[in-house]
């Protein structure tokens, strides 16, 4: 019993984070529809509940009640597993995102709190946080590719081929854009990265502006949001890899997509905008505020730009993003070395 108790607490903490993430994801859909509506001089959903606040629940109920279709020519096992891969890979990176410094539990729980990391505002502060995130988010593409392939439909297959090509091109740029931050912070742990930005002028967005822009672009390609949403391109591919999915299987893809959006925004907050840090208000508010600001930015971007042409996306990834990313890494290393030698 003595040993089972902390495990239970860790489980509860994990569960709380998952529930919070899922709730936020549900309301992201409302936020996106509202903001897109406003940008298009419309009102947005306002029929279900006051200000449309029950809309996500109605959408969820609708998705659950829709007919579950499995294409007869599909590879059934893979077809069913694919959306699960997408959702799992979108949810587990939240485990390393620090959302607050301390939860103030050490007085309640005693020494157990420190031993099992229960007091920190992160599910697991692993020292390879960033690598873990990149590893998992690369795995997420498997869901998309397998889903598109298993559907046995030409549109789905084309969508998943595009997804694969796009991921390979932008994963590199994304990783390179973060290396500058890692060098300056001197750590791969996200908690340490946040603690390295303890005042506003130390935020990495000011020390790594190019890295931030690269991260923003490569990130929105990574989560396949509008300027780069070629894999689900509605007008050419009908919806890409999701074409043959219905009901909750489609819902899971959707969930994964929005969880990715939330995750990328929180990662951006953590890496470039000082994470939970901020004056007066409790850390969690700063973290959520910054995260939702970036969610808004992504929706704003979606409401502004048209989709890029496929070859241009590839060209941009390999011929612009990659060299500029490498340049950023080298310049950062050069300047940082000089700084350490002559100033610091």
């Amino acid at each position, binding site marked *: 019993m003595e040993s089972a108790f902390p495990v239970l607490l860790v489980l509860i903490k994990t569960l709380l984070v998952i529930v919070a993430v899922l709730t936020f994801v549900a309301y992201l859909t409302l936020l996106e529809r509202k903001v897109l509506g406003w940008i298009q001089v*419309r009102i947005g959903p306002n029929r279900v509940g006051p200000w449309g606040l029950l809309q996500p629940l109605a959408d969820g109920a609708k998705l659950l009640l829709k007919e579950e279709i499995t294409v007869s020519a599909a590879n059934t096992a893979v077809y069913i597993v694919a959306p699960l891969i997408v959702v799992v890979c979108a949810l587990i990176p939240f485990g390393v995102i620090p959302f607050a410094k301390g939860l103030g539990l050490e007085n309640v729980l005693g020494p157990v709190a420190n031993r099992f990391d229960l007091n920190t505002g992160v599910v697991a502060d692993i020292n390879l946080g960033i690598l873990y995130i990149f590893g998992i988010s690369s795995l997420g593409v498997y869901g998309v590719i397998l889903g598109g392939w298993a559907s046995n439909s030409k549109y789905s297959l084309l969508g998943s081929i595009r997804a694969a090509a796009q991921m390979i091109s932008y994963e590199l740029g994304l990783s390179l854009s973060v290396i500058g931050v890692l060098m300056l912070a001197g750590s791969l742990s996200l908690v340490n990265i946040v603690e390295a930005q303890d005042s506003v002028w130390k935020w990495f967005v000011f020390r790594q502006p190019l890295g931030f*822009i690269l991260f923003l672009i490569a990130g929105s390609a990574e989560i396949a949001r509008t300027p780069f949403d070629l894999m689900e391109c509605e007008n050419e591919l009908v919806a890409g890899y999701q074409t043959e999915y219905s009901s909750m299987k489609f819902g899971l893809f959707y969930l994964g997509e929005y969880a990715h959006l939330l995750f990328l925004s929180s990662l951006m907050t953590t890496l470039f905008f000082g994470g939970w840090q901020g004056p007066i208000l409790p850390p969690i508010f700063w973290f959520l505020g910054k995260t939702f600001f970036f969610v808004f930015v992504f929706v*704003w971007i979606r409401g502004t730009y048209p989709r890029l042409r496929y070859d241009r996306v590839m060209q941009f990834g390999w011929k612009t993003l990659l060299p500029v990313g490498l340049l950023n890494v080298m310049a950062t290393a050069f300047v940082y070395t000089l700084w350490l030698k002559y100033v610091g």
Partner: protein
Amino acid sequence: MLIPLLQGLKLTFSYLLKKKVTLQYPDEKWDVAPRWRGRHVLTRHASGKIKCVACMLCATVCPADCIYIEAAAEPDGRRYPGRYEIDLTRCIFCGYCVEACPKEAIEMSTAYEISEYSRGNLLYDKERLMEPPTPRYELKKKAG
């Protein structure tokens, strides 16, 4: 390269704050033009008698052939339509009947909510045509 992108973002943000143009239809009604060609109305004299003299001009001019009139006469010889029916399922709302009428006996109202659950209800007889449509649409805007 970045500047045009930022200009685009600025533009969409300005739209974000604008007053919304959405008309929430069943709650808010659209103001139609004063000369809107909506559901027909058979007008009356001040005495309350129907203006129509059953001359059949409207029925003749109607390109959709949707007006059916049976003439009748009062004891003093004044003609009036015994039956006057407009089949709104066939009507194309061209307004020729209004133009053709020498007595200004048929007019088009601004009523545009005329859908029904059964086809039969769209066959308007004389009594229904003589009632002004409810709700009456108030004209606030002047249309050109």
